[in-house]
Every structure is written in C-alpha cells, then in structure tokens.
C-alpha cells in the first residue's frame, strides 16, 4: 500500500507540474488513520495532504459531475469499481469527460472500520497490514484479526481489478506502461471473491411474501431519512431530487405513515434500475446499516434474467437494457409468468 501510494503521488505531482491537469481529486488524511475525506488538491504543497490507504472507500466519480464543469482538467484517482460509476455518468452526459484525466489506481479491497469495532475491538489508534493479517493498536493493547474478515461488504463481491475507464494506470508491480492492465488482471482478486453477489437476493426470493415483507419492514423501518444513500449514489444525479422539492407535495421529512420510508427506497431503486453499477456505497454510508444494496441487486438480477447479463458502467457508450428496444425483447407478460399462477 505504501509503495502504490508513493507511485500515485509521484504521478499526480508530475501531471500537475507538466500542466496535464490543474488539480487533483483524491483523499486527504483525517484525525485517525481510518477517516480520509475526499478533497481537491491544487498545488504541490497541498498534495502533501494526499493519502491512499485501505480506508479510501468513497467513490470519487460523483464529485466529477461538478468538478468537470469547472475550468481546466482534473486528475481523478479512481479505483477499479469507481470507474463503473464514472462510465455511467459519462454515458448519461453528467460528466464532461474532456475535463477529466483518470488515473486508475490499484485496490486490494477496502477495510470496514465498523466491522473491526463489531469484533469488540475498542479504542483503535493504529493498524498495520501484512497480507491477510491485521495488527490493530488500541488504547487497550494490541489486537489482531484477518483482513478478509473485515472487508467492506461491497468488496466481498469485488468486480475485479480491471479499470473500465482510464487515461493512465498505476500499479505497484510494474512501471507505469501499457502492461499494467495485464498485471492487474492477472493478480488475484482481493478476497475469496467466490461470494455469489445474488446469494441473499435468492434467499429473499425463496421467502414467502409474509417473511419477505417482514424482513424489509424490519430493515426499512430503521430509516431516518438522512438521504445519505441518495446523496452518495453516483446514479442519483438529479439536479434537484423530487423529495427535496417542497412544491412536489411529497417532500417528506417525516413519514406520513409507517410505509413511507419503504416507498422512498423502492422508488429510488427503480429510478436507478439499469443504471446502478452495484457499487455498494448506499449500504456503506447508511448510518442505520440497512442493506439497501439488496434492492438494487434484486433489480440487477431480474434485468440479467430478462435481458441477458448486463453490467452498468462497463462502458460509456452502449445502450442500457431499459433504454433500448429490440423486437425480441421479453414482453411484460413474462413478469407475470415468472410469478407463477395467481
């Protein structure tokens, strides 16, 4: 990690000094080792604050909607999974690609500090990583755990190490040239990514409607309408959300009945259907730990089954399954058929 960070910083400095870009979007260090914040750096001096470590989970592609409207080119440090969101936003004409220089950076899976805390580890002040073992310094002595046990939920179903969009790549094993992509592809995925990302969706599908209803009521009733899921979501890029519009009559800061928060999340899932890249940011930021990504995955699974395998954000040009038409598209009837006889 230290080595790759050095390479990224060198590269950023060079591109800034050479005038390829006039600023860089990356992460700046925080109070602790685990709380970096997205930040824009405009000079070599400011770049001293740049960090890249196992806690830089936030997807920077959404910030590029605004940043790419400003003057000059910005260097964006994007992890492999972040490039899916980037492509999708380019496809939707939300990012002006001409104003962005993408530096694809290596990622070996991001760590969830909350999962470390959930192991009962308190007062965390430092961490050292070696392969799969983590040594955690705390106020109450040294603790340890496996890295693969505390990866972010979204990293458990890693899409792989390949960047879907980049102007240049940085990887630790080889100098930055064309061969980097091969190196990244060849190397192993972060964890045992044998995890089937639809596993839980299948479980939910297998439940009776009553069980499923009660699962979602339990989860969604925790919602406090903080909008963190919506605001972090790269697919939620409306300039003004209908739920923020007073005049819409549905700007609901409070739930008028107990089912309203369910509707909010279901409507949001449908609005990002076919565009959601399954980046998992919604679940990562939910302060109430609602597994929101499961709603999106259910729709992704349905799209795959109806229209064939599709991964949003894999490219920036093709038409999405829900925005395209073909004569042999499945008829809506198939939905009813799948539901069995009722």
């Amino acid at each position, binding site marked *: 990690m230290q080595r790759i960070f050095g390479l990224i910083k060198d590269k950023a400095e060079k591109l800034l000094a050479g005038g390829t870009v006039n600023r860089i979007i990356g992460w700046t260090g*925080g*109070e*602790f080792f685990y*709380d*970096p*914040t*997205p*930040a*824009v750096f405009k000079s070599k001096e400011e770049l001293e604050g740049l960090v890249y470590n196992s806690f830089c989970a*936030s997807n920077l592609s959404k*910030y590029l909607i605004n940043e790419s409207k400003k003057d000059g080119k910005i260097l964006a440090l994007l992890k492999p999974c972040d490039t899916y969101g980037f492509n999708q936003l380019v496809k939707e004409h939300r990012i002006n690609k001409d104003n962005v220089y993408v530096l694809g950076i290596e990622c070996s899976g991001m760590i969830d500090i*909350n999962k470390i805390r*959930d192991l*009962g580890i*308190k*007062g*965390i*002040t430092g961490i050292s990583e070696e392969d799969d073992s983590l040594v955690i310094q*705390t*106020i*109450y002595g040294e603790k340890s755990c496996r890295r693969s046990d505390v990866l972010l939920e979204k990293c458990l179903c890693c899409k792989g190490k390949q960047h879907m969009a980049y102007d240049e790549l940085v990887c630790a094993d080889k100098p930055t040239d064309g061969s980097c992509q091969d190196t990244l592809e060849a190397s192993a995925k972060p964890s045992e990514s044998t995890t089937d990302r639809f596993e839980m969706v299948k479980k939910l599908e297998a439940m009776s409607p009553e069980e499923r209803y009660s699962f979602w009521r339990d989860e969604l009733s925790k919602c*406090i*309408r*903080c*909008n*963190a899921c*919506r*605001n*972090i979501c790269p697919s939620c890029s409306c300039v*003004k959300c209908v739920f*923020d519009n*007073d005049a819409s009559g549905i*700007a609901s*800061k*409070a*739930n*008028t009945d107990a089912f309203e928060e369910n509707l909010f999340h279901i409507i949001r899932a449908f609005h990002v259907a076919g565009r959601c890249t399954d980046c998992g*940011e919604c679940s*990562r*930021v939910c*302060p*109430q*730990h609602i597994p929101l990504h499961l709603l999106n995955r259910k729709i992704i699974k349905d799209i795959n089954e109806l229209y064939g395998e599709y991964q949003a954000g894999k490219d920036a040009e093709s038409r999405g399954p829900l925005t395209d038409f073909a004569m042999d598209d499945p008829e809506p009837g198939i939905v009813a058929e799948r539901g069995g006889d009722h």
Partner: protein
Amino acid sequence: MYKIPVNHLTQLFSLISGDRALYAPIEKNGQVRFGRWSESEKVSLDKLNTIRSAKDFFFPQSENLVAFKTEGKKITIIENRDDSEAFILFGVRACDAASFDILDRVFLSEPVDTYYKARRDNGIVITLACSEPEETCFCNVFGIDAANPAGDIATWIVDDMLYWKAVTAKGDAFTETVKGLIEKAGSFENLFEAAGSPEEEKLKKYKENVKKIMDSLPLHDLSLEGFNGEALNDKFNSPKWKDLSEACLGCGTCTFVCPTCQCYDIRDYDTGHGIQRFRCWDSCMYSDFTKMAHGNPRTSQLERFRQRFMHKLIYFPANNDGVYSCVGCGRCIAGCPVSMNIVKVVKAMGVDKNV
C-alpha cells in the same frame, strides 16, 4: 449507594418494567439501539454509542402538534398530541445525559415547549459510566466526566457488580420505589444491597482509572480556544469553510445521529379531511432548511455546512453562558459518509497552539 450483581439485572429490569416502559441499549444483529426492554431482548452494557442518541425519547424524529378540521367557514382545532407515558431510560452514557441539559436550555426556556416537557417529566434517566472510552470520545473537552454521568440515577459496573446512586430527588424517589418492589417480590436476596465504604473505595479507584484513560485519548486536548461570541465575524468570514465543506454530501446523517442537534420543521399534512400539523427533525444540511417566503437564506452547501458548526461552537455558547452545543460523543466521527466532522472543523478553524 446500592449494589446489584450484573447477572441479576434481568430480574431487576423485570421488576421495574412492571408498571412502565423500560428502554435500554438493545443489541440486535450486532447493532446496538435504544429499544423497549423485554426478557427476550439482549441488553448491551458494553457498547458506548448507540446508533441514534438518547435524545429521541424527549425530542422524537416526528410528532403530532395539533390538527384542524374545516367545515365551511368553521375551523375546529383538535388536540392530537402523542400521549406521553411514564418511562425509564437505562444505560444512558455521560455524553448523552449531558445533551439533555443542552436540549433543556432550548425547549424549557420561555416559552416552555410543553410537548418536550411532558416527556422530560415522565422520564427517569438511569445513566451508566463508561469503563472503556473509545478513541473517538472527547466529552472531557466539554467538562463532562465519563466516569461520573449525570441523570436521575447514576450507575457503574465494576467487577460484575452494578453500583447504583441516586443523583436527583426524582432518582431518590425511584430508588425507594425499587426497594419497595424488591421487598414486595420477596424472593430476591442480594438483589439490591446497600454498598458500604469498601465499595466506595473500589468505585473511587475505578473512576481514577477511567480518568487516566480519558487523559490518554487522542482527542482529549482538543482546544476550543477562540470559539466564542466575540469571534463570530472572524469565524463566519474565514476562507477555510470552502475546503472544509468541499466534500460534504449534504445528507443529514451528522444532524440526525447528533444528541444535541435540535432544529425542527413544522409542516401541515393535508389528510383530505383536514390538516394534521406535525413537527419533525430538520437538518441545516438540507437545501430547504429555514426556507421562507422570499426563498432560502443559505443557497450553497458551504453556507449550510458553516451554519451547523457556527451554531454549535459560536451562536449557542454566545447565547447560553458559554455552553457549547456538542458533548463529544463521537457519533458524527463514526457516521459521516465522507468522514468530515466537528473535530476536523475545530482543529482547522481554531487557534493553533503550536504557532
């Protein structure tokens, strides 16, 4: 002071929850939230911060204020406030307990907020001292002692024994009630014994140890020098807000998990047959916060972000005898999706000790 073996707490909870609701930090699916206690629930005595703070019990996320019904030109006003029942809130930490004083300053000063007051009057707060503070804790910065929590009754857990001390008159009265309940139940020996001087000594040592830990925490010496009413214009006009607010998503997480954030909105809901007027938590991070007939006074996220910290660190203390509207619980540090928080703001905007 009284003592109760920790493994007898379920019996105690069962007794005291007989005639009123008991709320406690309940662990479910690995997460800890305040919830209604029943024998099947697992109480967490270990976790410091519940996801949401304890303010919810006095200032709920939404509540009915009043309803109106119109017939022709006649308007009928209908009282529809949510009934407040007597309840016990167990396991409140020192930081959350201190937040009630801050909320009281807002809601109990003239004109008294009767909705809030009814809940305060009906609630008995039993606090629990912190044995193992987290690295994100900085309550000491605001003069709060994690080992000496406020509330109506304070409790400490030392070596599998819970010590119980009434702090207020309300706490005294409730302690007598508990003693009565135990006597009546009869069969619980050792459940609620008076603790003597050896125990006091033990507790003293415990508190000294917690203090030592607090003094070694990374944020224990956070300086609030320069955050006061006199600095209002300097702080307000600081160029630093631009960088600090740059990453802010404009979500309401920090404000909703905060034990001291107290801003609310009042809205009318058209039921089709009349109007239901309710109030709900508002967030200064939202684009419609304090929107008025002329529009919104804060049109950028920078201004909204600045409002939150100016309120907590400048406006509130300037109007409330220097009391800051933060208790150092650390929830915003853990909760912010982009890891921006009050500590980073204080350090960036404050007086640098090293200069």
